[in-house]
C-alpha cells in the first residue's frame, strides 16, 4: 500500500506546475478562450515537449507508455489551471482508442502524431436524443463497393471543430440500442458530406454538432474489429472518466483554497467571516468531500489499468458518481461562501464551478453511473449476496 507518486512523477508534476504558472494564468486563459482557435498552439507544443501527449502512447511509437496515475497527475494540474486545450479529447480519448484498438498501420502512423501533438483528434459518440448511453448508436456505417458510407449525426462533440481527424462510433449491425454491432471509424472532417457547427461551451471549451451525409471513407478507416467496438468504446470512456475525476479534484482543491483564503480576508461585522461557525463547518464539509473525491480519483487511476472489466467498470462508475456529487457540493458552497463576489465572471471561482458542472455530466451523470455500478454488481454481487444467504439459512 503506497499512496505516493514515484520520484519521476513528482518531478513531472513540478514541471507541469511551473509551466502552467508561467503560461496559463487566469488572464492568459481568458485570452485563449476569447481567441479564434479556442486553444493555444504554443501551450499545446509545450505539453508535447514535457512528454504529456506521449502518456497513452507506447515507447515504440515515441511515447512513454504511461499509466493511469500519470494521467491523474497531469489532469489534476490541468484542473487547477482550468486548461481548455483538447488534451482530454485528443491525447487521452483518441490516444487510448488507437493504442488499445488500432491496427498496426494505424498505430504506427497515428500514435507518433499523438505523441508529438502534431495531429489533433475529437471523439464523437453522443447523438441527438441520447443521454450518455454507450449502447445507443443510430449513426450508421454500411459497406458499399468496398468503401464505408457513414450517415447520421453526433452531438456536442468536444473540440470537434479543431480536430484533424474525428473518431466516430457507428452502427454496423444490430438494433439501435444493442451493444453488439457498434464499430469505430476515423473520419476526416474535410471529407465531402461532413457538416459541422462549432460553438462555445459554458466551461470555456468548444464543441460541435457534426453531421454525416453519405460520407464515403476507405475500408482502412475502421478501428478494431467490425461490430465489436463496444468494449473499446467503454474502455476508452473509462479512460476519460479517470481523467476527469482527477481534473475535478484539481478544481475542487483550487476552490477550497480560494474559499479558505476568502474566509480569512473578507471582513464583515468587524471580523473575518471565517470566524463564523456556520461558514467554518461548510468549508470543513468541502474539505471532506474533496478528500473523498481524491480517494476515488486514485481508485479510478489505478483501476483503469485493471485487466478485469467488471472490476474496472464498477470502480470507475463509483468514482465518477462520487466525484460528480462532491464537485457539485464543493462548487455550490464555494459560490455561497464568496457571497456576491462568487457570482462574478471576474473571479476564477465561477469558472471552476462551471468546469465541475460540465464534468459532472460528461461520460454519464450520477444516475447513469449508479446504473453501471449496480449492474456490474450483478456478477460480483452474487458472492456477497449469496454467501450470507447460505449462512443465514441455518441461522434463521
Amino acid at each position, binding site marked *: *500500500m*503506497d499512496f505516493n507518486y514515484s520520484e519521476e512523477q513528482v518531478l513531472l508534476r513540478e514541471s507541469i506546475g511551473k509551466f502552467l504558472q508561467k503560461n496559463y494564468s487566469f488572464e492568459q486563459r481568458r485570452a485563449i478562450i476569447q481567441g479564434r482557435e479556442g486553444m493555444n498552439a504554443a501551450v499545446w507544443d509545450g505539453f508535447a515537449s514535457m512528454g504529456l501527449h506521449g502518456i497513452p502512447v507506447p515507447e515504440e511509437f515515441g511515447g512513454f507508455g504511461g499509466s493511469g496515475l500519470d494521467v491523474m497527475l497531469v489532469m489534476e494540474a490541468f484542473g487547477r489551471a482550468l486548461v481548455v486545450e483538447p488534451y482530454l479529447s485528443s491525447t487521452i480519448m483518441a490516444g487510448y482508442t488507437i493504442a488499445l484498438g488500432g491496427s498496426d498501420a494505424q498505430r504506427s502512423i497515428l500514435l507518433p502524431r499523438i505523441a508529438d501533438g502534431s495531429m489533433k483528434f475529437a471523439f464523437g459518440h453522443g447523438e441527438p436524443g441520447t443521454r450518455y448511453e454507450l449502447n445507443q448508436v443510430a449513426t450508421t456505417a454500411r459497406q458499399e463497393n468496398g468503401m464505408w458510407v457513414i450517415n447520421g449525426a453526433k452531438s456536442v462533440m468536444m473540440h470537434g471543430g479543431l480536430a484533424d481527424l474525428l473518431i466516430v462510433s457507428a452502427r454496423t449491425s444490430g438494433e439501435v440500442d444493442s451493444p453488439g454491432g457498434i464499430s469505430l471509424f476515423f473520419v476526416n472532417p474535410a471529407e465531402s458530406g461532413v457538416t459541422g457547427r462549432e460553438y462555445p461551451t459554458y466551461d470555456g471549451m468548444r464543441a460541435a454538432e457534426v453531421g454525416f451525409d453519405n460520407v464515403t471513407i476507405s475500408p482502412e478507416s475502421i478501428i478494431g474489429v467490425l461490430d465489436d467496438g463496444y468494449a473499446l468504446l467503454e474502455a476508452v470512456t473509462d479512460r476519460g472518466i479517470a481523467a476527469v475525476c482527477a481534473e475535478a479534484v484539481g478544481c475542487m482543491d483550487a476552490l477550497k483554497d480560494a474559499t479558505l483564503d476568502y474566509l480569512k480576508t473578507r471582513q464583515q461585522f468587524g471580523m473575518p467571516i471565517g470566524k463564523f461557525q456556520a461558514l*467554518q*463547518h461548510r468549508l470543513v464539509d468541502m474539505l471532506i468531500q474533496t478528500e*473523498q473525491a481524491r480517494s*476515488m480519483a*486514485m481508485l479510478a487511476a489505478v483501476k483503469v489499468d485493471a485487466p478485469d472489466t467488471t472490476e474496472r467498470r464498477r470502480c470507475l462508475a463509483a468514482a465518477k458518481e*462520487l466525484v460528480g456529487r462532491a464537485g457539485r457540493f464543493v462548487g455550490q458552497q464555494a459560490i455561497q461562501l464568496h457571497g456576491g463576489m462568487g457570482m462574478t465572471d471576474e473571479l476564477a471561482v465561477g469558472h471552476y464551478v462551471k468546469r465541475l458542472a460540465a464534468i459532472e455530466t460528461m461520460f454519464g451523470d450520477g444516475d447513469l453511473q449508479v446504473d453501471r455500478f449496480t449492474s456490474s454488481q450483478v456478477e460480483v454481487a452474487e458472492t456477497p449476496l449469496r454467501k*450470507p444467504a447460505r449462512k443465514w439459512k441455518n441461522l434463521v
Partner: protein
Amino acid sequence: MDLNYSPQELAFRDEVRSFVRSRLPHEISRKVLEHKRLGRDDYLVWQKLLHAQGWMAPNWPAQYGGAAWTAVQQHIFDEECAEAGAPRIIPFGVNMVGPVIIAFGSAWQKQHYLPRILSSEDWWCQGYSEPGAGSDLASLKTRAERRGEHYVVNGQKTWTTLAQHADMIFCLVRTASTGKRQEGISFLLVDMRTPGVNVRPIITLDGEHEVNEVWFEDVEVPVENLVGEEGRGWTYAKFLLAHERSGIAGVGASKRELRMLKYIASQEKRSGRPLIEDVRFRDRIARVEIDLMALEITNLRMLAAEREGRAPGAEVSMLKIRGTDIQQTLTELMMDAVGPYALPHLPDAWGDHWLGEHVGPEYAAPLAARYFNHRKVSIYGGSNEIQRNIVAQHILGL
C-alpha cells in the same frame, strides 16, 4: 502508488482471518451479525480468547504485553474482526486508560492495572461527561479534595457507557478551582466498589440500558490512584483522545452492515419483486456503498501516512464525521427496508433465549431500535460539530 496490501500484510490478514474463523464462537458472532443484544459475558469471552492469543492490546508496546502492531496491521485486525461479527473490544480499558497509564502512570499502576486490563479482569468505564460538562468538558465540577492519603470525591458523572458492568472508572475531576480551568483537572482511577459510588441507569430512546449516571458521595480514593501529577489531567485526556482514533472510521463494521442490508433488501419485496431490484431503493444502497468505498481509501491513505511517520492529527476528525454518517445511513436503510415490520417493539425478541414467535421476519425485530440507538454515534466521542470545529481550527487555521 499501489492500493494493495504488501505480501507481509496479506499474510498477517490470513493469520488473523483464520484465527477469527476458528476461535470466534458462533453464538457470539451470530448475535453481532443479527443485531441481537450482547451481554457482558459475550464481550468477555471474546476478549479472553484474544488475550490468550496475545492480541488483546494491538497498540500497546510489547513490554507491557501488547501486540505492538503497526497502524496498518491494527486496521487489518479491526476489519477482519468486524466483518466476521466479533464483538467490538470494549475500548475503555485497553484503548483509553491503558495507554494513559503506560505513558504517565506510576510503576505500581502499570504493574497492577495493565495485566488486569489485558486479562479483562477489570472492566473499565469512562467518567468524563457531567450534566453541565459535555462538549465543554473543561467546565466539569466533580471535586476531589486531598485529605491525607486519600482524595475525597463528590459529584456526578453521566452518560457513562456500561458502568453497570464496570469494576473501575477513570475520571476527570477538579482538584483546584482557581487559575485556568484546564489546570485544575486531575486524572483519577476509582474502584466502582468503593462506598459512596452509585450507578443509576439511563434508558435511551431505543429502550436499552447502555448508559448510566455515576454518583460520587464522599468517595475515598487512595492517592496512589492519581495518574501522573495533580492538575495535569487535561493533558492526559488530550493524549488519550489521540489514542481513541484506532478504527474510528468503522469501515469493517460498515462493510458487514452493508452486506446485511443487501441481504435484507434481497428478501424484502416491493410489488412482488425483491426490494433490491427496485431502482429507487437500489440507488440508495449504491450511493452509501460508493461513499464507503471512498471512506475506505481515505482511511488507508491516512494509515499509510501514519506508517511513514506523519502522525494523523485533525484528519481523524474527517474520518469520524464521514464514518458515523455512513453508519447512520446504513441503519436507516435497514430499517426502511423492512417497511412496516420495523414497527413492532418487542425488546425480548433481540435478547437471549427468546422463545416467542416473531412478528414479521426475525431480522426485522431489532432494526428500528438499532436505528434510534445509532443516532448516538454523531454525538459521542466529540460530537460531529465539535469535530468540524477541530478541523476548522487545526487544518484550516480558521
